[in-house]
């Protein structure tokens, strides 16, 4: 308990980082004025940045942490731009409010210094994320959101238990591993991510992809570095996550799988645990926050537009795609550093796996949609409308971030230079070239696409979770029945007993006066017998 208090006493001595965002989120949720809601969001965003980086009392963050926090803010900005709470999508309002809260909580989690505080902020993010999913509005989304919440809370409880057992003990280690593992979508508990991200509204998935899992990874970096078993989990995730992307037709679902696969790469880095690997993990996290969001933005634009892509979307998809794997942009650096660390650890083969996985993500998440959906001469009539300025702005903000990662990477971590080692660059280039050849030509038709392909891999299904919950209802009914029986039995017994007592009482009380005299004599007899007996 003392740990918890001391940790929190320290962390709550000041307002948490990102509080303006959270406040803005709460306010915009509370007041039913969409325009005001969005403006509140912007004010909160700017204020949050100010208090995080520029204010005199700003928390001291390491460059990597600071960059991650900044990336969170970029996502919030993109989300604000992308959302349409005024016209059309009323669910967006909930998504934006909760998204802002999640972003703020994410920043707070980054700035926190202890596991308890981190745990608390992950819970906040989990709650907000669950609401974001539910805001999708369909029954599926609602149930998915509930399942998400329950799983995340379960993870939170495990973390809390870990805290109770005390950091450093073995039990605590396992508990924290499982807790963070669930939150980081480690198999076999990654299905929530696929279901959640794909059932949320397009706006929702922008906010979803950024915060929750990254904070979990951050938590692993801080509290579980060098846990060997994570390397294998990570590789399994990376490979297992990328497979369904080959066959998935739903772009956002495909992106969700891609997220799993990229998280896998980060988990591998955590498992390695060297300083270099950890730097790579955070770098990749930063990059992934940016490029995954970009992809979700363009996928969202596509989804909103219907079948045909609006004019100009192709360009946006193109820059997003490049951010995944092009050296110098967001995605590459982290993977390169982790790869380097793998090589240093004597697992060069794993480096190739990572590179291959990255290239596949590049191909399936970016290239294939670009080729298939955004060609001007694509199937179906071309969409005459252009991409709206807001969506372009959202992409551009993120693109700036993406370029920033490439440009200022050296300022973030000394290990960044691994991104410019020639060997890996060549390998990357070969891999990219291979997948480009494959995807840009008819060869890609070898990979048939379908909605929800390989969905069985997405365990546990949300249904399992909510199904378990539904199981509680018949169970509860049993107890309700039992209780009713109990009360009825009790009541019956009471009534019977009462009637018996009453009958007896009436028997001795009512009757003619002659009976009374008889009773008197009877009592005298009894008393005399007792006296002489």
């Amino acid at each position, binding site marked *: *308990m*003392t740990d*918890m*208090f*001391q940790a*929190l*006493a320290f962390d*709550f001595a000041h307002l948490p980082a990102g509080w303006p965002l959270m406040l803005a989120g*709460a306010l915009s*949720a*509370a*007041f*039913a004025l969409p325009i005001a809601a969005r403006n509140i969001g912007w004010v909160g965003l700017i204020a949050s940045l100010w208090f995080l980086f520029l204010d005199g009392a700003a928390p001291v963050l390491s460059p990597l942490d600071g960059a991650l926090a900044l990336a969170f803010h970029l996502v919030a900005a993109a989300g604000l731009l992308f959302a349409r709470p005024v016209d059309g999508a*009323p669910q967006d309002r*909930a998504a934006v409010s909760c998204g802002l809260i999640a972003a703020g909580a994410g920043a707070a989690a980054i700035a926190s210094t202890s596991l308890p505080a981190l*745990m*608390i902020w992950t*819970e*906040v993010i989990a*709650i907000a994320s669950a*609401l974001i999913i*539910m*805001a999708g*509005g369909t*029954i599926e*989304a*609602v149930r998915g*959101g*509930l399942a998400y*919440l*329950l799983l995340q*809370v*379960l993870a*939170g*409880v*495990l973390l*809390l*238990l870990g805290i*109770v*057992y005390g950091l450093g003990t073995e039990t605590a280690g396992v508990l924290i591993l499982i807790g963070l593992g669930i939150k980081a979508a480690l198999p076999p508990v990654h299905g929530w991510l696929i279901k959640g991200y794909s059932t949320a509204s397009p706006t929702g998935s922008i906010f979803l992809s950024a915060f929750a899992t990254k904070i979990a990874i951050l938590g692993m970096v801080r509290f579980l570095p060098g846990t060997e078993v994570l390397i294998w989990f990570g590789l399994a995730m990376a490979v297992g996550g990328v497979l369904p992307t080959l066959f998935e037709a739903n772009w956002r679902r495909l992106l969700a799988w891609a997220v799993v696969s990229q998280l896998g790469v980060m988990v591998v880095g955590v498992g390695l645990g060297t300083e270099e690997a950890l730097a790579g993990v955070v770098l990749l996290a930063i990059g992934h926050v940016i490029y995954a969001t970009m992809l979700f933005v363009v996928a969202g634009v596509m989804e909103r537009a219907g079948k045909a892509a609006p004019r100009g979307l192709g360009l946006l998809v193109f820059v997003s795609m490049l951010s995944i794997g092009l050296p110098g942009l967001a995605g590459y650096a982290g993977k390169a550093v982790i790869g380097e660390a793998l090589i240093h650890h004597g697992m060069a083969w794993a480096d190739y796996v990572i590179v291959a996985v990255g290239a596949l993500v590049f191909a399936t998440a970016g290239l294939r949609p670009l080729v298939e959906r955004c060609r001007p001469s694509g199937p179906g009539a071309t969409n005459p409308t252009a991409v709206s300025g807001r969506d372009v702005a959202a992409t551009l903000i993120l693109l700036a971030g993406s370029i920033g990662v490439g440009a200022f990477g050296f300022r973030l971590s000394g290990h960044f230079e691994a991104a410019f080692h020639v060997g890996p660059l060549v390998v990357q280039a070969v891999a990219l070239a291979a997948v480009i050849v494959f995807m840009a030509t008819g060869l890609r038709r070898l990979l048939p696409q379908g909605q929800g392909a390989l969905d069985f891999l997405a365990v546990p299904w949300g249904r399992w979770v909510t199904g378990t*919950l539904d199981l*509680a*209802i018949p*169970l*509860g*009914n049993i*107890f*309700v029945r039992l*209780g009713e029986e*109990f*009360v009825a039995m009790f009541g019956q017994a009471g009534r019977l007993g009462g009637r018996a007592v009453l009958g007896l009482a009436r028997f001795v009380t009512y009757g003619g006066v002659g009976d009374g005299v008889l009773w008197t004599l009877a009592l005298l007899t009894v008393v005399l017998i007792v006296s002489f007996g």
Partner: protein
Amino acid sequence: MTQHQLMLAAILLPFATALLILVTGRWQNLREAVTLVGAAGLAIVVFKLIAGFDAAAAAPLVLAEILPGFKVMLRAEPIGLVFAGVAAGLWGLNSLYSIGYMRAEHAPRQTRFYACFAVALGCAMAIALSGNLATLFVAYEALTFATYPLVVHWQSEGAIQGARRYLAYLVATSLVPFLGAIVWTWIAAGTLDFTPGGILDGRLDDGLLAVLLFMFAYGVGKAALMPLHGWLPSAMVAPTPVSALLHAVAVVKAGVFTLLKIAVYIFGIEVIGRGVGDLLVVVAAASVIVASLMAMTKDDLKARLAYSTVAQLAMVTLAVALGEPIAIAAGVLQLVMHAWGKITLFFGAGAIQLATHKKRLSEIAGIGAEVPLLMVAILFGALSVAGLPPFGGMWPKFLLIEAAVDKDMTVLVVCLGLSTLLTLGYLVPIVIQAFFRAPHDDDPHHLPEKHHEEGDLPILALIPPVVTAAGCVVLFVAAPSILAFVAPVIGLGGLP
């Protein structure tokens, strides 16, 4: 004012308010003003009591001696002050809400309603400030009878039946096991005064102490330990502000507060912890889980909340039975946190009913969009009750788990974790149903003209839940201060 005067003021003020309410009953606005002024006054008095509390200077104040040795005696102590603070703090909000609710419902007999409300608060204050078990019992009984008119308020056939059940359970438990246990304690220990460290150690052997503990646990029927929880759902026939008072401020909290006092000052925490409470741990933990499961089956919002209360209160009983300083701390915090969380939920349920005239979970689909503020408040309340950060409700759960871990009760740890999930499972659907479902998702017969006109929800019924919901967050940060306040009496060390 001295502490003694403040204590007297805290108890007499609500009674004086009740009298004034009866006098001013003819003039509605004046009557309500009296209530609000009374509530504000009480809040100030209690605040002064808490702020000026000095453990060293806390002397008992003997008011009467009902039988030789059976004294009516007041004494301020931290746990009681915490309870008093909760009750006094929420009375004003509840009154505001009552005004909004009762006027919107055009309820009859409002004068009686407000007067009984004030009396109930006075009784709660007396419970909070009681200096011995005798006084506590006196106030406890008075509270039962003072709330009866509130429960039976609508005076319909159903209300009369429900109120009978309410009364039967509470009076039966208090007159038989509770009074029996009190007299037993009195004879065994020779005193009934609340004494830190307890008065029973060495007076009875542990087996008998366990029996006595059970007599108390079931004797304090207001704590609604299963299977004697039946009165609580029955009491739902009352108007919603009353349910809020019963479930958050006065009655059930008085019950678990009594148990806490008995644990700390009659048995002594260590005495319970050395095995006396073990069987009760099992019963209480089962109560937590079973009541949660039962809550899942309830479609009626208030019934669902009632079973939720049963489950959440069992946690306090559990805390008592664990007999660890940390657990007692959890119990005290649960008393506070659950009060704020659950009152928010009841305010919310009542407001939903006011706005839409719907009471069932299955009927409220989609109404959230019209009053988002309310739904956010309900969500906060639900999350706090479930024990998620950053809401106050997290602390008691956390400390309970810690206590269970300390005692190596792994099964209990699992139970507690499970209960959090179950709590979410039955509370979050309220928010989901109201907020995220389209109004006629699965209701093909939904008639658009049934849609009520806007502005049905009086502002007075909206502000209180919002305030209490915000309170849930504030309490998350404030919890360590509350703990620090009660730490000396429960022997809790290691606070920063």
